């Protein structure tokens, strides 16, 4: 029921938002076409401005992923992950998720294929994927778009949120599906 409602909302949201905004604009005597094109101009500049930040971030992540360092780190930290009830198979996904959205998704799919989507590991991977986000990519895009280089405590706070999401996914999945 809840899911159905949300599906309907996301289906209708965009056309409704567009007609609502343009409609209200007309009522308020906004020159809608001219204002739209004026606003849209910014799109190009913003997209171009993020390139150096994105290249820097994705290059570092690309080197790290390709080297196979992930597997080593997973082995190194396995005593800790065992302690909190995280299956060893899932740990690399927890590591890759904040770095790469497609990487995290690929690992989730692989885990479901290997252990089955209804297994504890399969479900835990899905919960983890939904509870965390690609922090490094988002920070690079957002701060890059306005040219901010000193990002202060945003990275540490965002990584705390990811850590909490990962731990919550492990604990909740163990309780609900274990």
């Amino acid at each position, binding site marked *: 029921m809840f899911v159905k409602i949300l599906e309907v909302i*996301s289906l209708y*949201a*965009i056309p409704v*938002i567009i007609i609502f*905004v*343009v409609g*209200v*604009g007309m*009522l*308020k005597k*906004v020159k809608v076409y001219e*204002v739209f094109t*004026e*606003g*849209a*101009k*910014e*799109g*190009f500049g*913003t*997209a171009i401005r*993020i390139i150096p930040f994105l*290249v*820097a971030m*994705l*290059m570092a*992540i*690309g*080197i*790290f992923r*390709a*080297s196979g*360092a992930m597997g080593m780190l997973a082995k190194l930290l396995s005593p800790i992950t065992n302690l909190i009830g995280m299956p060893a198979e899932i740990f690399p996904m927890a590591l890759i998720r904040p770095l790469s959205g497609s990487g995290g998704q690929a690992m989730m799919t692989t885990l*479901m294929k290997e252990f089955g*989507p*209804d297994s504890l590991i399969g479900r835990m991977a*899905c*919960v983890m994927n*939904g509870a*965390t*986000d690609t922090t490094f990519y*988002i920070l690079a895009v*957002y*701060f890059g778009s*306005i040219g*901010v*280089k*000193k990002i*202060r*405590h*945003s990275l*540490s*706070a965002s990584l*705390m*949120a*990811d850590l*909490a*999401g990962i731990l919550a*996914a492990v604990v909740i*999945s163990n309780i609900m599906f274990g």
Partner: protein
Amino acid sequence: MINYVWFGLIAIGTIVGFATGNIQAITDGAINAAKTAIDLSFGLIGIMAMWLGIMAIADEAGLVKKLAHLMKPLMSKLFPDVPPDHPALGNIVLNIAANMIGLGNAATPIGLKAFKELQSLNSTTDTATNAMCTFMAINTSQVQIIAATTVALRVAAGATNPTDIIGATLLATTISTAVGIIAVKLFEKLPKNRASCPAPLANLSEGA
């Protein structure tokens, strides 16, 4: 911190790659990533332009300010440095709402617009303000109500009940968002972050 993380990723990757003989893979990884960055940013141009156009109309019609005004009680607690009716807050509310219902395509351009508005309140343009850090902590903690992509991938993998993870995901993501907000508020009080905090602009009357 970002400098250490960035260096760490490259250094660890290179050392491990040399040790395990994955040297060609590292070269490919770096070069492909640079290409991906261009694909991503160019892919953003059209959708950015579209939503920025719509948002410009919403701005001009006073809708963004009205939205900020509606959410004032909550937003003024989260973003005390931003004037209550500033358009940045309206854009932040819209970004979070779009993310919640899974409209990532619309969320990013609107969020970037919010960042631009926040930058207009910033006296030191190369340094993040507290408001930017708070917004990022919320944004990167994934506030989506239905993890639509995950459910779709579960369907593809043949799960008996693909949506059975939704409750657990919602709970976990709520926890991560709460921790993100608590963390960002605690971290901004650390002496180091107080010292690096950009001074507010002298005249904060009207936003960009």
